[in-house]
């Protein structure tokens, strides 16, 4: 004979189980509806296939500290921000290749976003926090850091220069890199400088309106790229242009 209290307990547990089952089923249905609603709100327009265009990349070479212009055919979107991201992504893909002369892991996924903003204040462009990305006037005929030829150390001939005023319509490119890219970037003065310089030069080559570049890492300001190159500065793309 089953005692009465056990029957009551069993009945209560059975009722509770059924109620819980019903509640869980309803919660599942609600979550499913939310998921469907979310899918409906996502863009359904298929991405347009942009026509291939020639893009000029300034590719760094660690062995001689140079930047060499390389033309690549890429499908480039019309939107300048998206265009900048695609071009920089291709540049970093070259660096992630196994036989790269400037090996940096990460590839295109290392460019989280590129924002183009109007240069806020013409005076701000010439203030003390604006830095040249790296003067290509020091080396030989190639762009970049370069090897001087014996007897040609015309380093001391650099004249004091006033930072040139920014032309109308100038833009500041904010390049947001991923934390993984910065964490895995080889540490060193030359390699970090070349990365910064090649990004600035590539932006200038493909988006001439971009005159300044600022770097963020995971959306935050970071002191240095990998222990050396200062990322708190605004870099001028004019100083990363190829020498004619």
């Amino acid at each position, binding site marked *: 004979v089953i005692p009465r209290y056990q029957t009551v307990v069993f009945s209560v547990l059975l009722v509770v189980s059924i109620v819980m089952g019903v509640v869980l089923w309803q919660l599942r249905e609600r979550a499913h509806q939310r998921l469907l609603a979310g899918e409906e709100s996502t863009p359904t327009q298929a991405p347009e296939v942009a026509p291939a265009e020639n893009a000029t990349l300034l590719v760094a070479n660690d062995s001689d500290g140079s930047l060499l212009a390389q033309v690549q055919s890429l499908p480039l979107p019309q939107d300048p921000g998206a265009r900048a991201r695609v071009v920089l992504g291709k540049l970093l893909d070259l660096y992630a290749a196994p036989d790269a002369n400037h090996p940096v892991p990460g590839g295109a996924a290392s460019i989280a976003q590129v924002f183009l903003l109007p240069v806020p204040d013409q005076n701000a462009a010439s203030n003390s926090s*604006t830095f040249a990305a790296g003067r290509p006037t020091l080396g030989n005929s190639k762009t970049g850091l370069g090897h001087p030829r014996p007897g040609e150390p015309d380093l001391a001939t650099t004249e004091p220069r006033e930072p040139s005023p920014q032309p109308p319509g100038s833009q500041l490119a904010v390049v947001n890199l991923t934390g993984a890219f910065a964490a895995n970037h080889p540490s060193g003065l030359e390699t970090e400088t070349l990365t910064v310089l090649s990004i600035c030069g590539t932006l200038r080559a493909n988006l001439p309106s971009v005159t300044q570049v600022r770097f963020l890492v995971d959306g935050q300001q970071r002191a240095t790229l990998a222990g050396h190159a*200062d990322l708190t500065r605004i870099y001028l793309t004019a100083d990363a242009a190829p020498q004619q």
Partner: protein
Amino acid sequence: VVVLDAAHGGDDPGARIKGPAGHGPEGQSQAEKTFTLALSVRLRSLLTARGIQVVTTRESDTTVDLNRRAEVANHANARACLSLHAAESGSGIHLFVSSVAPAEPERFAAWKTAQATSVTRSLALAGMLNSALLHAGLAVTLGRTALPAVDSMTCPAVAVEMAPERGPDKKMVTAGLGNADYQARVAGALAAALLEWQSEARQP
């Protein structure tokens, strides 16, 4: 006075430099801070022996703030400041001068761009270092960069990055960073250039 700034140290190891470029066997790595301190000690000995007063930012494996490094250099009122670095990538010696735009001296200079008043002399110093290193048969790469400690120095300042010496193909390492002979050649060339810099600075 010459200021030698052995970059990194203490909690900041700098770059990891793998063997065979480093002292250790292949596969193991050593910190950049070790090589910069070794070069600083070697260079200090050579300069002191030649009668040049040397101020260093660190003498052991200690953490020194970047601002503190610039403070030491600026308080020393030095004729030359060298920030010493080491890297695994590239070849030979990389000389970097601050990319801050030159400016006329002012009563109050912005801390982050204090180098602006000395950058022209820094370029001259880099030229002299370049000549001495080339004379010693070393490959040299010159450039401009934004380096926080150097940008805040008011003395003629050059960042010297020592990379492994490589063969003509630019890939095969012929002398690693731990190679004593290579270190001695680099330190000797830098010391010769600084001696010449000092003697030129004394001339009216």
